[in-house]
Structures are given as C-alpha cells and as structure tokens.
C-alpha cells in the first residue's frame, strides 16, 4: 500500500476545482471535473431532446396552421364554407388531389393531376374515390347552408379532370348528423376493442347508399370471412413493401416532422398512425427511420393491430371498377359511411393494399394474383371491389391530418 506524501494530501484537500495557474489537479478536483462534465453532457442531451419536442410538436399533436381547416370549416356561410367542408374529406394518402371553382351559380370540382400516385394508384381508383368523398362533403356543406345540392358527375366529357358540378340552386338549410360529423371524421389506425358490430349498425350503414346508384357494401363479419380477408391484406402489404416503386412513392408523401407538415400541409403523419402517446412521442423525438424499417413497422402494425383488432371489414363494390363516375359515387358512399361511423363514436381505417396490388399487377402486366382472390371472397361476380376498410370501436381517438387551406385549392 502506498502512503501518500504530504504534498499529495495537500493536493487532495485542495478546494480549487479549476485552480489558478499554479494549481495542480487533485484527485478530488479531477473527479469533480469529471462529474461536472458528465452532468453537463446530460444537460446538453436534454437540450437536444427538448429541441426535438419543440420542433416536432410532441406536446401538442395536430396543432398549427396545417390543422386550422378542421376548426374553421363551419364559419363561412358562403359556398367557400362548403368547400371548407369538402377539403376535410377522406382521400388517398392525404394527397388532397382536388381543385374547386366557385361560381355564382355552381361549385365546380376538378381533379388535380399533379397530386396523383402513379405507382400506388396507377389507374386513379383511389384518386377518383377520394374525389367522390370530397363531393359528398361539399353537398353536405352546401345543404347545411341552404345553397343547393344538385350534382352532375363528369359534366364535361372532353375534360376528364372536371369531375363534378354542384349547382347552387338554393333551398332550405338542412343540417344532418353526417354534416355534424365532418370535423370529427379521421381515419383511426389505432387498435379497436374486441367488440362485435351489431347487425343493426351494419344495416344502418347499408342504408347510406340510398340515392346513390349502383354502389353497395359487402361486409365481412364472421371470423372465417375476416380471417380470409386478413390473409389477403397481409399478403398484399408484403407485396407492396417488396415493390420498390410503391414503397418509395408511399414514403415520399409521408411527413415526418413539423417543418414538413407546416410546409406541405398534406400527406400521412406520425400523429395519424394511431400510436399510443408514448410510442408517438418516441417516434417524433428519435430520428426518422429508414424506408425499410418503416415498411417493416407498417407490416407489423397491419398484422398485430389493424387486422388483429378489426371488428368487421367493408368493401365498397361497384359494377365497373374502371368507371370514373361509379368510383365517384362509390366515394360518396364511403364518405357517408365514415361520417355515420364517426357520429356513432366508432372508428374506420381505409385498407387498400389489395386493390393497390391489383392495379399495380395490371399496370406492370404481371399475372393477376390478388384480383381473383378478392373477387372470390366477394362471391358476387357481377360486382367489382372498389375500396376496402375496417371498422370497430376504437381504444383511443384518432388525431387529425394536415389540410391545405381553402385558398390553396380554389381558383
């Protein structure tokens, strides 16, 4: 054992943490310095954490300018107010592919071809369906304002982007439960409770097709039916992920941080993924994952949450899946169902992996693997599947998605 010298003891007892020019660094001082440095690094790390919390809006999900349309859509009594309701409609990958012309006598609805997804939705199936959803919200908004509700689909055959005209014919203001639900309707991608949907509820949802020609819903409620559709959805999800074009295009619309959301006000976000608060916070604080890691997470969520907790699936069917008019009408029914579900406190999530793979295989001239399987599950040869969704009683409320303001989509 080494006995310390008097000088060493003196140095050990020195109370100068950093000392003057002549001071020697004692063991205690060194330890103090080390502790100080370590704690300082911890504080600096907390600073980085705090900045991520600040920068990504961890403490206030779904807030800011990009979300203002969700709270301002009732305020304007003019047709522009109804457009404010239209832009809150469900739409594919939150691309918001719409443009509106508001005239003294009508509101014209146009597709915005620059906001398509050529790999995910090559034949505009979802694009047209989403436009139908917007038309439905527009009609509900105009009705509630007593401004009219006469819809003409595809009024200009020479212009395929001109999808609908709604005439401002006037009339009595007619609000409705569906209209009231517009501001609360969000895709709920979280888990649903293990609670079956009563057949009376499904019947009331079927009734939403009233006045819409040629569209219907096929429900999958039994365990066997749901299991078969679940297997097909999972297979389609795996095929989607394996398709580089679809995977990359899907990711290109994902808005991973607050700056992107504020700048673009579109696309899917972490907030809208139905994650638990803790997982969501971690997702926002940690650096963005790679495409492949994100794809794996999506597949896992599809397997363990989306399909595992679906109380029922619905598939909107039409006679001709290539008909833009029928797709638009199918979109109107989809929007009505989503609003009706919302007004009952239930959740709905769009799950279109199967039809996305059907269209992709067709686009690439690949053998049709998913089309015959889904057709077989539908068991109605005269009907074609348009879009698929799941419904149920959600564990937690869905958060809002960003929206471009009315001023950005009207001309």
């Amino acid at each position, binding site marked *: 054992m080494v006995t310390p010298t008097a000088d060493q003891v003196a140095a050990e007892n020195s109370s100068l943490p*950093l000392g003057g020019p002549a001071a020697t660094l004692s063991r205690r001082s060194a330890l103090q310095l080390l502790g100080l440095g370590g704690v300082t690094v*911890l*504080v600096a790390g907390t600073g980085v*954490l705090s900045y991520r919390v600040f920068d990504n809006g961890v403490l206030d999900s779904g*807030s800011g300018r990009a979300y203002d349309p969700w709270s301002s859509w009732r305020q304007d009594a003019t047709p522009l107010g109804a457009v404010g309701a239209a832009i809150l409609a469900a739409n594919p990958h939150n691309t918001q592919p719409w443009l509106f012309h508001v005239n003294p006598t009508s509101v014209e609805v146009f597709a915005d071809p620059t906001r398509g997804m050529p790999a995910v939705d090559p034949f505009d199936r979802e694009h047209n369906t989403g436009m139908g959803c917007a038309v439905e919200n527009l009609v509900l908004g105009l009705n509630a304002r007593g401004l009219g509700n006469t819809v003409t689909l595809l009024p200009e055959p020479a212009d395929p982007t001109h999808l609908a005209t709604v005439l401002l014919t006037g009339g009595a203001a007619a609000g409705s439960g569906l209209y009231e639900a517009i501001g609360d309707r969000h895709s709920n991608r979280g888990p649903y409770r293990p609670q079956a949907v009563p057949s009376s509820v499904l019947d009331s949802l079927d009734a939403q097709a009233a006045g819409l020609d040629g569209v219907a819903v096929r429900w999958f409620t039994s365990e066997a039916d749901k299991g078969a559709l679940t297997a097909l959805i999972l297979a389609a999800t795996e095929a989607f992920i394996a398709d580089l074009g679809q995977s990359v295009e899907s990711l290109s619309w994902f808005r991973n941080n607050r700056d992107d959301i504020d700048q673009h006000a579109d696309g899917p976000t972490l907030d809208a993924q139905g994650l638990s608060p803790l997982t969501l916070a971690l997702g926002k604080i940690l650096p963005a994952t790679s495409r492949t890691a994100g794809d794996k997470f999506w597949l896992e969520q599809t397997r363990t949450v989306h399909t595992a907790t679906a109380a029922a699936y619905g598939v909107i069917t039409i006679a001709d899946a290539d008909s833009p008019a029928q797709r638009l009408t199918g979109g109107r029914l989809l929007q009505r169902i989503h609003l009706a579900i919302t007004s009952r406190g239930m959740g709905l999530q769009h799950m279109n992996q199967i039809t996305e793979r059907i269209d992709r295989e067709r686009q690439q001239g690949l053998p049709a693997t998913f089309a015959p399987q889904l057709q077989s599950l539908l068991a109605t040869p005269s009907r074609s599947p348009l879009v698929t969704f799941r419904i149920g009683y959600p564990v937690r409320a869905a958060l809002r998605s960003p929206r471009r303001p009315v001023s950005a989509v009207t001309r």
Partner: protein
Amino acid sequence: MNRWQQNQHIASVVGLIGGALGVVAGLIQATLGSHIPHWSGHKAAPVALGLLTILLSAISVLSAVALRSEVTPGRRLAAAAGLLVPGSLCFSTGGALWYLPGLLLFTGGVYAVIAGDAARTRQVVARMWWHLLVSVLGGFELLMAVSAGPTMTIAVGVLGGVALVVAPSLPAWRIRLVLLLIGTVPFAILTWWSVATPVLAVLALAIGLSTLRPRAPDEFGATETPVLMATEPSRGADSTRS
C-alpha cells in the same frame, strides 16, 4: 477605462441593442409571423413563440442593463448567461428574424465573459456551474412549454420554466426548493408520455439539490474592480507608453 471595463461596456451596449432588436423581432413574430413564414421560420405557433422571444429578449435587456454598472464576477457571468442563453434559444423561435439580434446577443455575451480575469472567471464558473445548469434546464422547459397544448399545459410549463431559471439565484434555500419542485413536477406529470419532460425533471431535481447548499460569501460579494484596477493597465497607461 481598462480593457476589462471596456469589454463590459461593449457587452452592455451590444447586448442592449441585441435585446431591443430581439423584442422587436418577437413582436413581429407574434403579430405578423404567420404572414411572413420565410422570415419567421414557418412556425406552427408564431404567437406563442413571439411572446417567448419577447420574454427572453427582455431578460437579455435586463442583463445588458446590469452590465452598465460595477458587478461581481458572479453577476457578470449571470448577465453573460442572460445574453447567451436567450441569444441561442431564440434561433429556434424567431427564424430569420432572430439572425441579427442573436448575433448581437452572442457577441455581447462573449464580451461579458471576457470582461474579467480569466482565472477568477473559471473559479466562479466552476462554483456557479450547477446553478447555471438548472437555469439552462429551465430554458429548455420554456422551449417545450411554448410548443405544448392546451393552454393549461402551456401555462404550467412556462411557470415551471421560469421557476427553474430563477431558482438558483435566490438566497433562501426553502424558496429555491419550492421553486425547483414547482418547476419540475407539475409539467412532468402533465406530459409524462413525452419522455423529455420527466427526464428534464429528474435531472433538474438532482442537480438542483446541489444549489441548496449555503452560498460561498464571494459568489455575489466583492466586485472585481479592485482586482482589475490592480492588475490590468488602463488604456490611458497604454497610450502614455505609446
């Protein structure tokens, strides 16, 4: 006026201009921020961030004013922190509007740091470091609070952040303890799922306990001036030599 006094004077003037411009930047952010996103940094909540910018700029102004008179090393370094911390933090609240005020405050802060004997400064920094860390954590809490919602959470976070910023500089240990608790626990409980606020609370409490010890008499005691006068030649002396 010797070189250290001159540096302190520069720190005061530059800090005052930077702080005043910072207040203006905050006002612009709060009132026009949403209309000039390229300048204001595309902020989601420009009003709240503008108000925070004003608050932090006001702290800078007070720090700059404090540097106008003779101060102890502790107070000088506290004033330097009052210029440097807002100067750095507000780059994330003011966007391009903060570039000029931030640069000025940072410059002023550096001048305040070097306006004294380096060895003495190091000693004081070492003694005050724990206090400074708690205050810095309070600044981080303020940053998170202004991005929070709803209003109740913002209020709790802002109050907590301010409590943490000021707690180490108060003389009574009981008040410091109360402020530490107010500054950490409520906000962390309200936002437990955010990960960051509980981490900050644990760290601030752990470090804050070290600030509860009795203060050394010279931390805020004697001024630096006698030392300065005795060791640092004045400009007049320099010019006489030249």
